[in-house]
């Protein structure tokens, strides 16, 4: 599904990602962990197509196509979804209007007609129920005045409604209380599908207790320094990142 080859990225001459290699197959769940500032969010932004970075080397293939050559919307239409570490507020635009514009944008691209109002609202309300979200959120402006946890839950709602094929979750677990974490994790698990892949960026094992990853990668200084199975996360939890660095040095 996704193949990242020797990806180098810098901002204003400073290299942030230096040679990332990663392959993610259909239906797989990959967790990416790593210290603050190691480049995890940057990687997710690059995949989603945010402007302002220099991609100096490497390439990314998404279902065989050159992802880096596509515009932000084209990537979204092709099924790339990023749950933001810091979801953005859009004042004056209601959540429901936003969701509808997004869904219809994608449907239009797939050659489908706009979902009629009834079908749309039924679909959205069903997903909200699954995520234990109050329907009043539909009529509030996108993320405006939402608490940290509410914003994160709203990202998962959008993901559930849009049904992308590549889901990038950047620290969706941070800021969630214990119950919310479980609800969100269930939401993600419900979406698991042989044709859908997940990249979970997280600092905590806790999330991975609920969503079992197939692979765990450690990112440090803009590089994948270690990859392994779910047990790698447990070891990290036990020893901290210094342990990886030591092992690398030795």
């Amino acid at each position, binding site marked *: 599904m996704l193949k990242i080859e020797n990806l180098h990225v810098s901002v204003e001459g400073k290299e942030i990602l230096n040679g990332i290699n990663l392959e993610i197959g259909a239906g797989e769940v990959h967790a990416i962990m790593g210290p603050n500032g190691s480049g995890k969010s940057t990687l997710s932004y690059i995949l989603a197509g945010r*402007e302002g970075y220099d991609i100096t080397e490497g390439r990314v293939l998404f279902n065989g196509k050159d992802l880096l050559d596509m*515009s*932000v919307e084209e990537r*979204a*239409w092709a099924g790339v979804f990023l749950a933001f570490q810091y979801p*953005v507020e*859009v004042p*004056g*635009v209601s959540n429901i209007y936003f969701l509808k514009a997004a869904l219809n*944008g994608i449907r239009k691209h797939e050659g489908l007609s706009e979902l009629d109002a009834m079908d749309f609202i039924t679909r959205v309300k069903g997903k909200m129920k699954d995520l234990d979200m109050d329907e009043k959120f539909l009529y509030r402006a996108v993320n405006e005045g939402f608490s940290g946890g509410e914003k994160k839950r709203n990202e998962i709602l959008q993901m559930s409604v849009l049904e992308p094929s590549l889901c990038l979750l950047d620290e969706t677990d941070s800021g969630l209380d214990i119950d919310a974490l479980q609800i969100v994790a269930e939401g993600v698990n419900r979406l698991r599908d042989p044709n859908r892949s997940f990249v979970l960026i997280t600092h905590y094992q806790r999330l991975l207790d609920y969503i079992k990853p197939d692979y765990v990668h450690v990112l440090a200084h803009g590089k994948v320094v270690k990859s392994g199975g779910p047990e790698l996360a447990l070891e990290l939890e036990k020893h901290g990142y210094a342990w990886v660095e030591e092992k690398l040095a030795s």
Partner: protein
Amino acid sequence: MAASNENLKNMIGQEYKDGFVTDIESDSFPPGLSEDVIRAISAKKDEPEFLLEWRLEAYRHWLTMKHPEWAFVEFPKIDFQEISYYSAPKSMEDGPKSLDEVDPELISTYNKLGIPLEEQMRLAGVAVDAVFDSVSVATTFKDKLYEAGVIFCSFSEAVKEHPELIKQYLGTVVSQYDNFYAALNAAVFSDGSFVYIPKGVRCPMELSTYFRINAANTGQFERTLIIADEGSHVSYLEGCTAPMRDENQLHAAVVELVILKDAEIKYSTVQNWYPGDENGVGGIYNFVTKRAECREENAKVSWTQVETGSAITWKYPSVVLKGDNSIGEFYSVALTNNYQQADTGTKMIHYGKNTSSTIISKGISAGHGQNTYRGLVKMGRNAENARNYTQCDSLLMGDQCGAHTFPYIETKNPSATLEHEASTSKISEDQLFYCMQRGISAEDAVSMIVNGFCKEVFKELPMEFAVEAQALLGISLEGSVG
């Protein structure tokens, strides 16, 4: 982020959609302004003597006035002798006719603009007065309104049919000496709309006037007078368009609203005069005096304006709050793109006790646009417990444009309260990225964010207008730099 600006730049500039010219034979005065021209206009309209005198007084006063220079707008000096002060389709020579007799060319012009005038196609629930250059060509639903006691007709017709109302109210809110352009208008105005809502009547439908400038080298000087008698209620809409021409054209209108005890007027404008091209060539100079007087207690007036057109917009729909407990509101969206300039705002003049006013102004600047909010809130000596709330928000798109705010406050009564909030923001790249990441195109994302910014104003517009205003905003922003 530079590359995202690229996205915005690439949004294809869409042409001004109402820029066509109607090919019709017109009867136009040669350019020039003099007492003779004013007499000729008055004669064309078969006016009573008092009105001609009123015009001439205005003209003589105007000759002594200096062109005002205080607005934050720039344009070459206007030569008032180069303008033609009267132009009407030949077919309208014998005054307003029944709709069946109106030149089909005119009907099709309004059809193209989305304003059907024919019986079978009329907008349900909206009565329309269609003003073409200097004359009103048709007013729909006149009879039905008359049954309810509502008078809705062209100004010329009102002068003939209801001279006593004209005599009683004309110039009582905006006098013929009020300011340079109001005096000019008083001297040469040719037509406009007239509305009278009698005591206790809730106008059974929305009233609207659609202004169209067609002829070249003419100015449009219309005059609107609306009177809401005790306990009455009316919602009035106004729309404006003009062909694309390389020369600037002057539109200097006066609108007077009189609101009596317990009455209410809701006045909405969607102004889409031709704004000029992307290099700032051509476009309408929209210099307008609009004022409402809440003459008696519990009167209420609300101005809502969406200003997307015109090369220059220079106007301050104002409210004089004389009656105790009267209420004035001003909701405005002004957008300037390319080389457009807008200096707009309001004046809320509180004289009565417990009067209250609300000002919500949203300015959007893109391209090289200059957008100025200028407002005055005045609390008179007797304005016991008067209140004002003002909120001015500016949204900047790009770094070539400008937003300016000049709020003036004068207060002579210590019990009055004033609140002012202001903000300036840029359309954020993060917001754009977020929307686009969800599959919303750059163009739709910009228009969505801008519409969100204007929401508090749009919700004041009648339904049909709100939809039009949102679409208009999208079109006006296309080709703008983020």
